[in-house]
Each structure stands twice: as C-alpha cells, then as structure tokens.
C-alpha cells in the first residue's frame, strides 16, 4: 500500500495538471491546424484535414507578410538589446562588486528604483520625440536595455562575488590593463550567469507587449506581440489563423525552454531570491 501511494497521487496530479495546464495549449494547437469552418466551432474535435502548412503560410502572408516583418523586428530588438544589456550590466556589476566607492550607494538606490517604480510612459514618449527616437527600432532597443538593467546588474553583482580577487591581482601583475582584466579574465568566468541572463531576458523582451505598444506604434515597426494583438480584430471569424498565429508566437520560447531549461530555472530562482 505504501509503495503505491506516490504513483496514485502522481497519477491524479498528472491528470489534473494535464487538464489545467496542458489543455489550453492543446486547444491552441488543434484550432491552428483546422480549416476556418472547423475552427469556428472551437471544440476539441480532431480536424478532417491537417492544414498546418496552409494555415502557417496564410498567416505569414497576411497583410503583406506583416508577421514575417514582425518576426524580424522582434528578433532584432531582442538580440541587440540583450547583447547591449549583457555587456553594460556585467561592466557595472563588476565594478560595483569590486570597487569601494561612494557611487556604489548611488547606483544601488538607482537600481532599486528601477525594480520598484513603474516607468512613466508619457514623459518618456515626450523625451523620445525630442531626441527623435520615438517610433524607431533604436529607441525601442534602448528602452528595453534601460528597463532591464536593474535586474541584470543585480544578477551579475551577486555572481561576481564568487570570482576570487586573486585572479584580478595576478592579471594585474601579468601586465593586464583594467579593461583587459575584465574582458579576458572576469567576463569569460561569468559564462554561466551570462547564459541564464541571456535566456531569461530574451524571453521577457520577445514576449513584451506593453513597451512596443507605447514606444513603437505604427505598421513599419511591428513586433510579434503587437501583430498578434492586431490579428485579433482582423480575424474575428478566422479562428484557425488566429490560433496559428498564437502557436507561432509561442514556439520560440518553447524551443528556448527545451534547450535551456536548467538555466531558466536557475535564473528565475536567483532573481526571485535576490528579489
């Protein structure tokens, strides 16, 4: 009796979890491969014909390949902003952890504000307009960097404390200039936390809806999330295409999750633990 218990509880848990957590995704996947009329029934019946590719192509073609453009934009924003973010936050976290300076206090307070305070959107729009970066990809990228710096820097700062200072000093004696100590000794040793950071930030930025909504309106610079949102009003009757769109938007994080499961978990827990 004792040995059966884990299996019974597990089986029940699995069944309940399957219904609650898996069912919505199954629903999405099913509607995405149905024909328009079948999908409008919004049920769990299997499709007569699997229209995966047809729907996929149709969604991509919609509105002059808007989704393709959106994918390109989202990817560009994600890749560039994450790259800048990693570099800048590692640099700051490094000096904050290693050097005793009054600026550390200032930086800590500033970072804490970033974690708590919601960004004031309208003044930011005004500012971006003045600099000429409103509705531009560059502006969006810089905004993503700015809004994610706090978390990233804190992550690096706590991890760098595990790299012994001895290494800095040995490099100094070997003749390394400060920037060489950072790029050739410290940064390579930050790889684990960098991977986690890249994964977590990439998913967050790729999934971001609010910021592109405010700072990147307009057809030329659509992102994937905005496109999906717009599709809702466009495809009131074409549920199959709508869900195919959802599916396409869900895929990248799924792939990342499959490959980087461990790093994501570590990153989220670290971020959570650090608050």
């Amino acid at each position: 009796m004792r040995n059966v218990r884990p299996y019974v509880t597990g089986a029940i848990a699995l069944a309940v979890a399957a219904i609650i957590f898996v069912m919505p995704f199954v629903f999405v996947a099913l509607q995405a491969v149905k024909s328009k009329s079948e999908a409008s029934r919004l049920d769990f019946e299997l499709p007569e014909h699997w229209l995966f590719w047809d729907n996929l192509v149709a969604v991509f073609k919609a509105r002059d390949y808007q989704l393709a453009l959106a994918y390109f934009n989202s990817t560009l924003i994600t890749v560039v902003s994450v790259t800048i973010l990693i570099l800048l936050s590692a640099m700051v976290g490094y000096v904050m952890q290693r050097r005793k300076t009054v600026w550390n206090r200032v930086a800590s307070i500033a970072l804490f504000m970033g974690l708590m305070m919601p960004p004031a959107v309208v003044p930011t729009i005004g500012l971006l307009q003045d600099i000429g970066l409103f509705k531009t990809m560059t502006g969006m990228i810089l905004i993503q960097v700015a809004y994610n710096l706090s978390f990233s820097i804190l992550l690096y700062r706590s991890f760098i404390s595990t790299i012994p200072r001895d290494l800095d000093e040995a490099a100094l004696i070997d003749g390394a200039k400060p920037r060489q100590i950072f790029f050739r000794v410290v940064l390579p040793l930050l790889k684990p936390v960098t991977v986690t950071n890249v994964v977590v930030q990439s998913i967050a930025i790729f999934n971001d809806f609010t910021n592109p909504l405010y700072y990147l309106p307009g057809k030329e610079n659509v992102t994937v999330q905005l496109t999906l949102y717009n599709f809702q009003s466009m495809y009131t009757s074409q549920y199959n295409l709508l869900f195919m769109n959802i599916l396409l938007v869900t895929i990248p994080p799924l792939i990342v999750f499959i490959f980087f499961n461990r790093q994501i978990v570590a990153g989220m827990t670290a971020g959570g633990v650090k608050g």
Partner: protein
Amino acid sequence: MTETRRRSRKSPYPLWFFIPAAIIYGVLFLFPTISSLWFSLTRWDLSTAEFIGLENFQQFFSEPFLVKGLVNTLIYAVTTSGLKTVCGLMLAVLLTSNIFARGFLRTLVFFPVLVSTIGIGITFTVMMHPTKGIINVTLKTLGIPGPGWLTNPALALFSVALVDVWKGVGLATLIFIAGLAAISPDYYEAARIDGATRLQQFSRITLPLVRPATVIVVTLSLIGGLRSFDLIWAMTRGGPGFSSDVIASVIYKQYQAGFYGLSTAGNVILFALIAAIILPFTLWFNRREVGE
C-alpha cells in the same frame, strides 16, 4: 599631506564602466520617471504644460471610472498575489514530495510563465466565450450554467485574475520549491519522532521556515499585479465598460485620449501605491526576522 607629491594610482576597476549604463538608464528611465512627478501636476500636450496643481489627482479620486480603476488595481493585485502564493506553495509541496513524474510536472506547471501573455489572453478569451467557449460548453454538458466570464461586469476582473494566476503560479511554485529545498529534513524527522502529524509539520515547520520564499513571492506578485496591463488589455480592454479597468489601462486610455497630465498622474499614483504597499511590508518582515 602626502597627496600632493603622489600621482594617485588608479584602481584597476575603472569608474567609467558605469557611464554607458548610467547614460541609458538615467536618460531613458530615471529622468522621465522623476519628471513625471512634475508633469502630473500639469495639463500638457507634450509641447506646452500648464500647471494645475493637484487637479489631476482630484479627478482621479472623484471620477467614478478612475476610482474604479484604483480599486480594481488593489483587488486584482491582492487576489492574484494571494492565489499565487497559496497555490504556489501547495504545488511546491506536491512537487517536492515523492510522486511519479515529478520533473515532468514541474516543467508543465512552469511553461505558461514563458509564453506570450497576449497569446494566453486571446486563447482564454476564446475559451471563456459565454456561449461558444469550451469552458461553458463543458459546464453545460455537466448541467451547470456557465457564467459570462468576461461579459459580466461583476466577473470580468476576476476572470482575468484567474488567468493571471494560471499563467504565473509556475514562477511562484519554482521559488517555493527552492525555499522548501533549503529546509533541512532533520527538522521533519525530529518532529516525526515528537509525534507531529503531517498537518502540524506543515504549519509548525514548513510555513515558518519557508518565509523568505513567501516574502519574495508575495512581493513580486504584488508588484506585478499592481502594474498588470497586458493580460487585462488583451482580454477585456478594461471592459465591459470600465468594470475591469486598472491603473495601467487607465494610464493608456488617458494617453490615447490625449490627457497626458492625467495619464502621468496615474503613473505617480501607481508608484505611490507600490511604495505604500511594498515598503511597510518589507519593513514588517525584516523586523519580524530580527525579533525572532
């Protein structure tokens, strides 16, 4: 005294490393956010600003649809935070016990956290359709009349909150799992020897010792709940009417309507709300830690 004749030796940790990040952060985040305090006291259209004192705030606290947004925000934050905390802990306890397919279940529970909020919002909106939605259809076959999840003004906010919890509980679970793992099994063994039941073990050992994780989960989910926008916008756009508006959606709507001062006042109120709730909470928690 000796400073004059010495060339100050540079630290190997250059301060200029702060500069690029400081510029981006300062210009694009700190500056606008701090200047919002000023702009919330104006009526402005991005080019001219007319000082009107606390009028914007008065409006916020008098106009019914704005007040509703305020109240909704609190309800939403507390509801989602509470549910995420309780369910997250329960799930964590389940997923750290010796059940079959534990790892797989953890992955399952966590996956919604990573998925597009808009995608989730649209999916659940469709599923929650009062007549065609799969949820009500299923309930109908079971003989239960399904409510208007998103069409009933009294229910709309809660429906969105439920979806929010569905999406976010995985992260809470993850954090709780880490917190539970930090509790030494020795405590449970000692308690068992002392004759404690499983319930007693949970209330006397687990709950107190998992408190650091609890604080994090509550804090993060409260802040997230107060700032929540994506899901509500995707599912109800603050409707029906404005029954599910929250401060974040109010900010957007006022922005769209061109009332920039009012919109910015919303930002300030949101910040004040977050500070008013989070700061006392962390202080209370820290004091309790020390007191023990």
